[in-house]
């Protein structure tokens, strides 16, 4: 109590101005932080705006009905057709294969690391997972084309060199560490008291993991799935290299196909004149990609809320 007045008395005379200077500094910092946060929003808005603007020009030439219902996508041919369905089919098929690989595998890895592995095993495996996440996707692309495809050809006779199965599996492997790592974080965040309650009832480790920890962590685990699906849908290099680049309206994983992203890369690297319909078409399909990703995010939000087991 006695120290305070003496401390006040020792303040410099101009301490009122000093306070004002501090307020200005605080305001500047706040503004800078706001701008940083705003840049994320602004970038998103700008991307959607450009997609809409260029896409709008595209739809001046091609009707929305043709775009959404025709089953041929041949913008680079003499007789151009603009039916986006083959690209969607390719994207869907490859993503579905990837998700079928990544979700079970990623979940098993997460359950093992979170509930079964000893501290030492976990500390050894985790860095490897993170390392795998950092491998450039082009490496996975060649891995698919030069290793997985020949392997699959031995199992499935007559499998063409370009097919959807191989890149699907490889993308699945590629996003597994991601799904595993995010799911594991969610599961580890479940309080130990939940596990103790389960073990005290005579539950095994596996029962505890499946009936208590996983449901309690479900919102984080579903978030991991959604992030994984979004990455599979948006993955470009692996499919551009290993699936062939010919749009093909089929869901047969043995067939070659092009995805939305593979098509964008093909056109963006070609020399189509700026402003041509072909050039504008990549913005139209880009818009489709954004809508698909948005759709999964909305589903993810819904599922998280529906299955939420808050602890």
């Amino acid at each position, binding site marked *: 109590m006695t120290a305070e007045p003496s401390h006040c008395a020792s303040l410099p005379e101009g301490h009122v101005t000093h306070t004002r200077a501090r307020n200005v500094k605080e305001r500047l910092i706040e503004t800078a932080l706001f701008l940083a946060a705003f840049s994320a929003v602004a970038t998103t808005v700008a991307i959607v705006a450009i997609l809409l603007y260029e896409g709008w020009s595209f739809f001046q030439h091609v009707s929305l009905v043709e775009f959404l219902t025709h089953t041929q996508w041949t913008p680079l041919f003499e007789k151009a057709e603009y039916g986006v369905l083959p690209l969607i089919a390719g994207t869907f098929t490859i993503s579905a294969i990837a998700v079928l690989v990544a979700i079970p595998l990623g979940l098993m890895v997460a359950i093992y690391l979170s509930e079964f592995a000893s501290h030492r095993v976990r500390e050894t495996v985790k860095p490897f997972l993170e390392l795998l996440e950092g491998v450039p996707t082009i490496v996975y692309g060649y891995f698919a084309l030069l290793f997985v495809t020949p392997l699959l050809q031995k199992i499935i006779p007559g499998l063409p060199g370009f097919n959807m199965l191989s890149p699907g599996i490889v993308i699945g492997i590629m996003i597994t560490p991601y799904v595993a790592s995010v799911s594991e974080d969610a599961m580890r965040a479940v309080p130990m008291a939940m596990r103790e*309650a389960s073990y*005290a*009832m005579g539950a095994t480790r596996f029962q505890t993991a499946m009936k208590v920890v996983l449901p309690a962590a479900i919102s984080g685990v579903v978030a991991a799935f959604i992030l994984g699906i979004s990455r599979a849908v948006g993955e470009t290099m692996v499919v551009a290299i290993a699936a062939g680049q010919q749009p093909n309206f089929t869901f047969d994983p043995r067939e070659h196909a092009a995805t939305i992203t593979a098509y964008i890369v093909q056109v963006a690297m070609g020399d189509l004149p700026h402003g041509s319909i072909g050039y504008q078409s990549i913005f139209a399909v880009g818009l489709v990609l954004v809508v698909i990703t948005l759709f999964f995010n909305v589903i993810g939000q819904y599922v998280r809320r529906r299955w939420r087991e808050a602890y």
Partner: protein
Amino acid sequence: MDQPQRIVHEATGVTLDAPVKAQAKGFHFYYGAHHALKDLNMPVAEKRVTALIGPSGCGKSTFLRSFNRMHDLYPGNRYVGEIRLYPDDINLVSPEVDPIEIRMRVAMVFQKPNPFPKSIFDNVAYGLTVRGMKNRTEIADRVEAALKAAALWDEVKDRLDALGTSLSGGQQQRLCIARALAAEPEILLLDEPTSALDPIATASIEELVTELRDRVTILIVTHNMQQAARISDYTAFMYLGELVEFGPTDEIFVRPKKKQTEDYLTGRFG
């Protein structure tokens, strides 16, 4: 009423009015190199309430958690000696005994209510589903019986689908007791079950413990000496990992034999 039994427990020389359900015999416990429990010898009488009291850090919770092998969940823990469980006469801390089997027979309620983030029904049914029970009607019957035994049925019977975590603290703790009771354990371990609760909820849990006395053997850790005096039949006073004194609760509280016990009970330390 049965004739009151008179059984003399050899190691402590205390006369019990019920058969021995479990007993510690030369029991030690180590957290890594830390010798947390030293040479404990005491019985737990069947269908009686035994209280473990003592100052913080005396090892009473550590001792309680040995009865259902909770220490097995963490590396570096070690049991030495025996805790024998009757009538089988097995050493429940022996490495050859499956801890899961022990936990199915010895249930536990924790200090802080820890219902699962599931429905009230699923919380109580948990121990049954873990045991592989499939019959829906049987599960429903057992859940109802357990909720009634835990004096919670009337409050939750119309909302069994509501989340267990949506209940009040006292209700959550009674839900945890119901969860433990549904599996019909032989021993119920209560680890300071009222320390996180308000006085009214505490009173309802104490009343419940008294009612459950006829159904199940209860071992309770409490920080609250009045609580031990109110609800227990036998009391063990522990200090620095050792058992100082064990005896019928009224004798411990009225005529403690050891000076340390008396000093603790009269508030001279602890």
